[in-house]
């Protein structure tokens, strides 16, 4: 079965926002970060994502403000295009098609109409050699323009943007690669190259890591692999150049930036300390320590009031120039290795995985935002390689999210391992997980797997260990001087022929426990812990076990290391079917009876989605990802889709997320869904002077509601006109940048119409303000779509919404009633019960 074209593997957010330097807008209100294929516009004060500029087809590798219009931004991408955006409205203005992949972009005010790009040198593709080219942007009016007028500036340079910097007033450009610094003067068209020795007797590693030019003086600051910072002067001479050396960092200087006034020099590196050097008095420096993770980029706002550091753990910190942290924008932390499974927190529906070292992060997929970090290890992490430190290796939630079990490990020097199992209870008061029980060394050695019993009256946790046992843990109450408290304790220790258990799994209703011992699957009854049945499918050890869900709960699926996917019928205790498929990852959808199996094929991973009861897969796709898929999870959707396509129905209730080989979080998206997102992303901002945050929207609504109350007449006028609301039209006319407006002839009639005074009172004023508000908003949405479809203002989108709801469509009045009931005080009921 060929994969239908409309299901696509996409980066779904959670991508790195620290891949390249973040860029402040001129007024420092917004921060632009490249994030995967898109650019995110964050409010620098509220940390909220205001816009997502989508349009590139590959990784965005650089953004710069348009020097001639500070409301526009250039972006470049590996897809070989440069795009010009209006970031206040989130609109793509122009696309320049360049051709080769672009690795970074640089501009300067002096070079109008020219952007400098780093592209691979065409001559030798085998070695990765890059050159800096000047691209003259054609002035043709079209949306998509071919730009081919390129001239090489410097050859053989580093592709990293931090190794290139424009000098004072764009007179020269400095670039560093290896142990060589080259400075190209545009006016004289002359290039000077300065080399350092690769190493010297004292073992200094002199290679350059980053470059920054002083904005007013002719001084180039360079960072080096051994932590030195050199300040170069007199570099327009071949020999009489000079430099001074400063050192604070003990390992490589990763980022170096002058403030726009040139009074400060900021540097950062693995030490996670932002160092502020005073230009002219370099012995004086200020520090901002404990930033949590290695600094990779530093940028400064154009007025110098805000600094912004990008960190390796996908975090952007906005810092005031007094070195006080003012905002932290945290993305999904995917380190080099995610050891826990991907989990979905049943309460918040957040994705849970390893975050910072020793932590679990809760990441909201819906809002593409980290919710919080849970400190599991509760020990200070030391930023030094080669240390043996505790790491979280396993985690599991029970079905309603009240219990969280975590396993942390630390390798001992003698080859042994230090394991502790921790159980965390969700506390309503603290609104967080709190440690309930710590079990030190639950098994002799590693814990292979762990799962909670979903159904049943008591919560049970089963762990399997490398020591040949599986253990069941239950919550036991014990009384001590403080009163009654409940802790977890071991209830049962099971084994089977002294084989090492690997996977374990509870059935959906919690009535059966399957534990695999090498090639044998044993089925146990929880509670009494009697062995009910054994299955075996040699050759090969069992790798993964999974019970079917809902309609297929009579099936138990297992995968073996020898490449067999096997399905047992628990009623007949026989193999229902088996197929030769090397499944590396088996996941079941908790909301349906679908299962997803990832199988490794040469160099890539294939996906099969199937129902255990049906012989044909629902969906299959070859090569969903290059490399091995490490982890996957089904995450429930906020609202179910109504997909007509049969092959896409498995995506209706939940989405499948997976972590690819290079730690990108990917998901599957349907075309119709994408279209909807794209349409909604094109809407204009309500008011571009205020960052659009939920709080602002709330306030705005409130204020507008008040105004409407005071001025019903005006409101009615607005509501009655078939044309767009008056205020909106005028506002839009005045506030939208001229280049995105339709021709004046179009607008004229609309504008004049909006000025006409019409008769009041056709529409009933009995409708609640709330509803008016909604319709108004939808109107705005409608207009913003450029086609200007003529349709009634309130009707269709509302219907669409209801249709999309699918499960329970309540009318507005019913909803309001429900809300009122919820608000009502029912405490008297409990009081009565107590009596």
């Amino acid at each position, binding site marked *: 079965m060929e994969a239908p074209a409309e299901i696509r593997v996409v980066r779904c957010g959670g991508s790195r926002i620290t891949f390249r330097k973040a860029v402040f807008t001129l007024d420092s209100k917004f921060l632009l970060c490249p994030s995967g294929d898109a650019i995110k516009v964050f409010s620098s004060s509220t940390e909220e994502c205001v816009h997502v500029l989508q349009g590139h087809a590959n990784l965005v590798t650089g953004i710069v403000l348009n020097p001639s219009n500070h409301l526009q931004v250039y972006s470049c991408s590996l897809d070989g295009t440069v795009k010009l955006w209006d970031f206040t409205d989130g609109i793509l203005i122009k696309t320049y098609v360049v051709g080769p992949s672009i690795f970074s972009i640089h501009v300067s005010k002096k070079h109008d109409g020219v952007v400098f790009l780093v592209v691979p040198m065409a001559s030798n593709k085998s070695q990765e050699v890059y050159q800096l080219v000047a691209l003259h942007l054609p002035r043709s009016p079209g949306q998509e323009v071919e730009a081919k007028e390129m001239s090489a500036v410097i050859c053989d340079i580093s592709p990293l943007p931090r190794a290139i910097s424009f000098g*004072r007033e764009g007179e020269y450009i400095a670039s560093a690669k290896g142990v060589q610094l080259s400075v190209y003067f545009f006016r004289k068209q002359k290039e000077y190259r300065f080399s350092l020795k690769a190493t010297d007797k004292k073992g200094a590693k002199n290679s350059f890591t980053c470059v920054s030019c002083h904005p*007013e*003086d*002719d*001084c180039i600051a360079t960072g080096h692999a051994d932590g030195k910072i050199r*300040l170069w*002067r*007199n*570099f*327009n001479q071949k*020999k*009489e*150049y*000079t*430099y*001074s*050396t400063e050192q604070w960092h*003990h390992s490589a200087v990763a980022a170096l930036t002058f403030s726009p006034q040139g009074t400060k020099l900021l540097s950062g590196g693995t030490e996670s300390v932002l160092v502020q050097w005073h230009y002219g*008095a*370099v*012995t*004086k420096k200020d520090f901002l320590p404990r930033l949590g993770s290695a600094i990779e980029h530093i940028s400064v706002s154009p007025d110098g009031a805000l600094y912004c550091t990008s960190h390796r753990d996908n975090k952007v910190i906005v810092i005031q120039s007094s070195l006080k942290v003012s905002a932290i924008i945290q993305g999904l932390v995917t380190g080099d290795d995610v050891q826990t499974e991907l989990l979905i927190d049943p309460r918040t529906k957040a994705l849970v995985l390893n975050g910072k070292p020793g932590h679990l992060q809760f990441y909201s997929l819906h809002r593409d935002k980290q919710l919080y970090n849970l400190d599991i290890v509760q020990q200070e992490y030391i930023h030094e390689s080669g240390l043996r430190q505790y790491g979280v290796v396993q985690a599991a939630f029970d079905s309603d999210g009240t219990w969280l079990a975590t396993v942390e490990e630390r390798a001992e020097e003698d080859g042994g391992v230090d394991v502790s199992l921790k159980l965390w209870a969700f506390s309503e008061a603290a609104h967080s997980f709190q440690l309930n029980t710590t079990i030190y060394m639950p098994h002799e050695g590693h814990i292979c797997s762990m799962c909670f019993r979903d159904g049943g009256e008591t919560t049970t946790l089963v762990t399997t260990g490398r020591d040949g046992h599986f253990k069941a843990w239950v919550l036991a109450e014990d009384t001590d001087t403080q009163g009654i408290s409940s802790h977890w304790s071991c209830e049962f220790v099971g084994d089977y022929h002294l084989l090492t258990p690997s996977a374990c799994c509870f059935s959906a209703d919690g009535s059966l426990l399957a534990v695999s011992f090498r090639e044998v699957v044993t089925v146990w009854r929880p509670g009494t812990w009697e062995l009910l049945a054994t299955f075996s499918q040699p050759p090969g050890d069992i790798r993964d076990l999974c019970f079917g869900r809902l309609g297929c709960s009579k099936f138990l699926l297992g995968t073996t290391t020898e490449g067999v996917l096997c399905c047992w019928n628990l009623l007949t205790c026989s193999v229902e079917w088996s197929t030769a498929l090397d499944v590396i990852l088996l996941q079941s959808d908790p909301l349906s009876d679908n299962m997803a199996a990832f199988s490794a094929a040469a160099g890539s991973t294939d996906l099969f989605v199937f129902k255990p009861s049906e012989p044909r897969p629902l969906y299959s796709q070859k090569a969903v990802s290059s490399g091995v898929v490490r982890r996957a999870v089904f995450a429930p959707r906020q609202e179910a889709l109504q997909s007509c396509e049969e092959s896409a129905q498995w995506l209706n209730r939940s989405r499948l997320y997976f972590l690819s080989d290079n730690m990108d979080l990917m998901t599957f998206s349907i075309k119709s869904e994408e279209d909807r997102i794209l349409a909604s992303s094109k809407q204009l901002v309500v008011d571009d002077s205020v960052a659009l945050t939920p709080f602002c929207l709330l306030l705005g609504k409130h204020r507008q509601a008040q105004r409407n109350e005071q001025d019903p007449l005006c409101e009615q006028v607005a509501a009655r006109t078939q044309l767009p609301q008056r205020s909106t039209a005028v506002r839009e006319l005045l506030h939208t940048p001229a280049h995105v407006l339709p021709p004046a002839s179009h607008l004229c009639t609309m504008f004049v119409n909006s000025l006409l005074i019409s008769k009041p009172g056709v529409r009933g004023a009995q409708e609640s303000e709330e509803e008016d508000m909604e319709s108004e908003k939808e109107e705005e949405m409608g207009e913003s779509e450029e086609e200007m479809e003529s349709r009634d203002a309130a009707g269709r989108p509302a219907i669409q919404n209801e249709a999309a709801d699918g499960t329970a469509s309540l009318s507005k009045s019913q909803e309001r009633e429900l809300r009122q009931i919820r608000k009502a005080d029912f405490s008297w009921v409990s009081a009565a019960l107590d009596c």
Partner: protein
Amino acid sequence: MGEFKVHRVRFFDYMPSGIRCMAFNQRTERLALARLDGTVEIFNFSDRYFQEKVIPGNDARSVEAICWVANRLFTTGLNGEITEYDLENLCPKYSVDAFGGPIWTVACNALGTHLAVGCEDGSVKLFEVLPEKIRFEKNLDRQKGRILSLSWHPSGTRIVAGSLDVINIFDVQSGHMMQRMLVDRGTVNSRTRECVVWSVFFLSDFTIISGDSSGKVQIWDSHTGTLNKAHLVSKWDVLALSLSQDESSLLAGTSEGTVVQFQFLSPTLGASEKEWVRTRTFKHHTHDVRAVAEIGTAVVSGGVDTQLVVRPLLDKVDVKSYDTGLRKIQFPHRPLVSCAAKAGLLLFQFPVQLELWRLGEGEGPGRPGHSLIVTRKPEKLLQLKRKGEDHICCSAISPCGSWVVYSTVSSIRLHRLQYDGSNISIAKVPRLPKVLRSAHQLCFSADSSRLFVASSRSTVHVIALSQSECKYLHTFKSSSGSTEPMHLLAASADGRWLAAANRACEVHVYNVRSRKPHCIVPLYGSCPTAMAIHPSTNNLLMVHADQLIFEYSIEEKQYTDWSRRVQKEGLHRLWLERDTPVTGVTFNPSNASQFLLHDTYMFCIVDQRLPLPDQKAQLYNQLTLKSLSEQDRKSYSHAFKFCKKYQPLLCVSVLEDQSVVVVERPLLDIATQLPAPVRQKKFAT
């Protein structure tokens, strides 16, 4: 190449003295350097940094400041005197008391007509420089607090003086103070301690630069008396400043052992406005840098850790060559050890004493590269303290071991030694001939019957020694009329010839028997650093400061064929680029065609029969040769064989029993004897 039994001597506790101050004479390219013990040394920077002259110190005289006036050298010290030196006789010429207490600093004006000295009592005194003397002219207004640093404005009308907590500017004409600039005490050291302005410079644009004890280099405007800019350079003191001739570069030496360079640069390229910008930091010292000199092409620094460091500025040189390497001069370029080859005795020369040691003995046939079992330990036989306050400038022991002679700038003392294996007795020879006043170099003939004394005005006295008396025989006068001091003497084994080299690079050969000058070796531009006469062929072998080797046949009065071949083919590049001059030549008594050369870091055996290495050949090729077969070895071997096992070397000589004595002085031993450096925070401690 032959096997040797080696006496590895490590009991020579030679301790160089720390460097106190220095002055560079741009015109003659000589660096004058004064050490803490009062020794003044002159290095010739145009001749491979060769230590040309050494004026021994004196206990009563300390040197605090040093200054060139044209070719005349002046020092001042804590004894309150200004001393001029006689650079031909290597002794103080005269001293003038300034009557202001200890003198901390001296400065000469640009024309070289006046000296200004800063005294303990707070006065600045001007002296007029006259031929052969200086004369007190006047006092400038006396201030409170000692004057520690002085600098003339290039026009000669103003003087700036650094004192405690204050910098004063004087008008030379009137002698009145014009400006008074207070120096901030800083927060690094406690505020109660005075800020000492260790060094100050007056630039031609009326900028003043000062370095002080709170670690700041400050730039002042002398018209307004205001501070323009302060650079905090060190947590401790900035002890020395040095300005380049064109006033574009400034060096500051600090207590932390660093030398910081400042350059006068314009902040934007091509603009005319300039400012002082801190650029490079050099760290070659472990202790206080007491003296720095910016000589245009290099940074010269010296301090308490006793070594003189020459760090070339690569941006000022055109081609990478011998001169562009970093150079550390730690040991004197003259032998301090003399060896009695027949008696197996070593004489060590210290500034205030001589030590006589008997070499130990080892046992049994050892394998190459292994050490023998010591059966008799080396023994210190004698410690001879010098008389008077002058330091010893040269010494010698006769080959038979029965005569010891040493000289100071004021006297020569000859001792007769009797040693029968267990008892030692020493007797001073009472009445020396009147001509023996002082010596620049001393040498015994091979049969110990003659003593040659190189004395002032390039003369060599010949003294006959016998059991009963010592008799003055003859004086060889310099036939060229040169008055430069002799620094090398070499007597032939048969007693016929005496070669004497002086600082003017002349090598005279005298016939001792006929008491006549024999010839002068053709003049070569570089100073000879070591020479010896071959015992059998009577060829004079000379090694010069530029590492070239000459062999001169005395009898034929011409260079030998081998020497001509060396000149024609040239020596290997690596040989020419070595760091230190050859300070010793000896001959292998068992093989007439071989001789030994040594410098501080190696000794080598040169075989005159083997071909010279060409430029492409591997110079240090012993390891390669070892791996080759017998036949290949012949084609690859060349005249030079190196041994770098013993470092740093102060002396290599061959005893009568074919064993080699090497005298080492490990740098670590010197470092442990130095005072503790200032405390510095080291990373991760």
